[in-house]
């Protein structure tokens, strides 16, 4: 006990000798929870992390952070349906952050400025893995294997890498240069050997690959047209949707009917409609069982809403909740289709069943009808793995049950998007690395993301979402890209809209508002990556900092 003379005097700041931390029943702790965008991304991108870097103008660091999950941001930034933005907490505040726009910006900047992929060349004696198919899944798998210090040989049946991105997605949506440059840069990395013109079952054999390589990843996609007919009837000049897109991309020309109906509700169908418009078709109709995407629609089309909207701007007619009842043929040639309104309704057992409504049949005069209802896996070269099923069934880590063989992408039948394929490639790479007794360094978060209610939105300001320029419909010709990207200023401003869910943004609220000066600010990053430490000697556990933390990064836990 200190000795003081009698009378009311004390030394300055002497109360620090009295540790009010002993009063505490609960304590604040820093908890870095996944942001909803991170949680929702099929490729496992932590958008919150790279948006924070973009906001600070650290573009290259942001891109390097982004490619730790997805090496193809210029591609996915254009074609991904961005579930991250659907999940974005800011969507409940004003408008979701344009994550895809920033992703695309970073991908484009990396190509433009030639930023080096952040990876060291693998040792010469590193195990070599065979990746079959240089589509999104295969490229992602190869990249993540390389990051883990392995060597990769990538086999591709076509002459260029990119898979469906290179062969089928139209250039007005995904310019060929972007695909060639982004994939090309990846294939040129030291440690990745690109072998074009090698088709599985023709030029290379699965059993040989399994013998020669430490592991095999199959990402061969699904390119075989799904058989289609109406009651067994097909027109004699039946074209398949994907094949037409590939033809358009390769040759720049397709048969142009006066009036055409495209059947399907996915991106292939929408792409094909827009290609027909560009090729000169007068009337293009999209016929789909599903509804327009929108809030509360139970059965939306799988196509990207913005692509659909642009298609409609370009004059494509979208006939929703419509089925094809009958083909009207003159000889072998289609001259019309009979459509009927239909909808999915619950039956007596509550199961959804598609019901056609009598009396709504109508005839559409068309010169061509094109199904774009999906593709099947072409199993040539790995029939023994398919065992008669339509697609390769994979476990969560990409294993297919055959030792040393993994799969990802459309060949599994459940990827659905380029980004999901990237994610499957990444998971399979992690499994391959682990199977070779190495540290994968590829982490996934499955914990619940930060809920909107956990944020304190008082500390944010409403701000309109930034949009890149869009070509007016009249100027959309040929392969001109419709959507223009962000300039650096717009990208930075848009990244500034990120609410930083679940991660410290060093806003100083906890430091400013603690009545007990129990939050201390650090000059450099503290151990947990924030800029603050709690001084539990004085913290009384009031919870004010947690209540006023905008991002939900501070949580109160019962005192241990």
């Amino acid at each position: 006990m200190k000795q003081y003379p009698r009378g009311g005097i004390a030394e300055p700041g002497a109360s620090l000798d009295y540790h009010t931390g002993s009063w505490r029943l609960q304590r604040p702790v820093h908890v870095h929870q996944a942001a909803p965008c991170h949680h929702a991304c099929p490729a496992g991108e932590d958008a919150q992390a790279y948006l924070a870097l973009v906001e600070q103008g650290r573009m290259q660091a942001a891109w390097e952070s982004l490619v730790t999950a997805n090496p193809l941001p210029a591609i996915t930034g254009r074609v991904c349906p961005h579930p991250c933005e659907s999940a974005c907490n800011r969507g409940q505040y004003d408008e979701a952050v344009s994550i895809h726009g920033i992703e695309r910006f970073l991908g484009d900047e990396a190509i433009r400025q030639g930023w080096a992929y952040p990876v060291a060349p693998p040792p010469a004696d590193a195990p070599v893995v065979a990746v079959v198919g240089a589509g999104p899944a295969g490229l992602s798998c190869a990249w993540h294997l390389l990051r883990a210090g392995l060597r990769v040989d990538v086999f591709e049946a076509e002459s260029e890498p990119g898979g469906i991105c290179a062969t089928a997605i139209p250039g007005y949506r995904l310019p060929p240069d972007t695909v060639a440059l982004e994939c090309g840069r990846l294939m040129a990395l030291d440690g990745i050997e690109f072998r074009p013109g090698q088709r599985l079952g023709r030029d290379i054999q699965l059993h040989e690959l399994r013998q020669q390589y430490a592991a095999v990843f199959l990402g061969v996609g699904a390119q075989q047209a799904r058989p289609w007919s109406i009651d067994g009837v097909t027109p004699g000049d039946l074209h398949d949707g994907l094949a037409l897109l590939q033809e358009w991309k390769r040759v720049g020309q397709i048969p142009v009917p006066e009036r055409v109906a495209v059947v399907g509700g996915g991106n292939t169908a929408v792409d094909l409609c827009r290609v027909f418009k560009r090729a000169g078709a007068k009337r293009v109709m999209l016929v789909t069982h599903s509804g327009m995407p929108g809030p509360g629609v139970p059965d939306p089309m799988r196509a990207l809403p913005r692509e659909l909207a642009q298609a409609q701007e370009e004059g494509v007619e979208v006939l929703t909740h419509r089925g094809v009842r009958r083909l009207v043929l003159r000889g072998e040639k289609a001259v019309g289709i009979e459509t009927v309104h239909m909808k999915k309704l619950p039956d007596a057992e509550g199961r959804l069943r598609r019901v056609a409504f009598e009396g709504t049949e109508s005839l559409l005069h068309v010169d061509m009808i094109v199904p774009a209802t999906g593709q099947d896996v072409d199993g040539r070269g790995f029939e023994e793995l398919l065992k008669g099923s339509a697609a390769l069934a994979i476990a969560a880590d990409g294993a297919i049950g055959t030792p040393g063989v993994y799969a990802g992408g459309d060949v599994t039948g459940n990827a659905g998007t380029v980004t999901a394929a990237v994610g499957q490639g990444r998971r399979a790479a992690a499994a391959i690395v682990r199977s070779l007794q190495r540290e994968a360094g590829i982490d996934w978060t499955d914990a619940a993301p930060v809920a909107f209610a956990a944020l304190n939105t008082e500390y944010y300001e409403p701000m309109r979402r930034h949009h890149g320029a869009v070509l007016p419909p009249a100027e959309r010709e040929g392969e001109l890209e419709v959507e223009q990207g962000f300039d650096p200023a717009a990208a930075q401003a848009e990244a500034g809209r990120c609410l930083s869910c679940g991660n410290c943004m060093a806003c100083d609220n906890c430091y400013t508002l603690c009545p007990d000066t129990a939050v201390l600010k650090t000059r450099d990053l503290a151990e947990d990556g924030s800029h603050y430490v709690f001084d539990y000697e004085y913290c009384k556990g009031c919870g004010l900092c947690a209540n006023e933390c905008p991002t939900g990064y501070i949580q109160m836990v019962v005192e241990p």
Partner: protein
Amino acid sequence: MSTITNAGAPTRADGTISLTELREQQPRFQGFVGGHRACVGCGQALAARLVTEAAGPDVAVANATGCLEVFSTAWPDSAWRVPWLHSLFENAGAIASGMEAAYKARGVSAKVLAFAGDGGTFDIGFQSLSGMIERNHNVLYVCYDNEAYMNTGIQRSSSTPHAAATTTSPAGRERLGKRHMKKDILQIVAAHHMPYAATASVAYPSDLRKKVRRAMEIEGTTFLLVHSPCPLGWRHDGAKSVEVARLAVTTGLVPIIELERGSLTGSMPIREPRPVVDYLRAQGRFEHLFVDTPAAREELEHIQALANYNMERYQLRGSGHDARDTAGADTVRRGGVRWA
């Protein structure tokens, strides 16, 4: 003791520094430190911290009796790192006047701050405050307004708002809390024709800092009324102190304004006014208003009318986006960039 790295600072062999050392390297001046005995989530402790941070080290404090005085100086400890003097409940203004005169006589350049609660300002210390202003001493007088005598057990003061329940204005069959209105101390003080009198809230620290600095620059008496929630007396969770303070502002019940020579020169516009029930419902001292009786309904309407009156009188209704309105003034930015 937990440790953190802090490059550039004196470090231990392992590159870490202790929290004690870190505390001495904080970016803002700390005139009021931890270890004080305030209740959890005390709005007054927060207010004192924010005011002393903004005022800086060249000040001396005269403190009236009250919570702040009691909890900050449990002998032999003091939470103050600036010269600080306490005498009585009723004489903060007089003591501050004397301190200022003494500094002046000795040629010392320092600002004197007078700190008092609402009891020591609105009621007991009012005459010495009035005298100090009349003589225009170079003092910044800060009233930490928690709207009752909290230190002695939550008795009503002339600052207690209408209809709030305290131990001496309890809610019951006959009355729904305090019968009388809250005294408009700011207008009374400003009527001394003083250079600067303003209100602030702990929910808007940047605005509060700006006002402290403004007042510090003025030669003469200045007055700052800081709305400071009391979790114990207002009966809300200590974690909600800032939230409650913010609602007091956004409902219009506590106008954030500046008066110079008695005239309105500044106000914080309310971008999206909230209904007063949002503020009242957050506090136990108003819980008796949330029963379905004609009297309670009338009181709620009455309090809403008081808020509307404030909005009209001080033109608080915002018009669109304003970086200094209630929604813009507390906006946070990455890296802790604040406007004050």
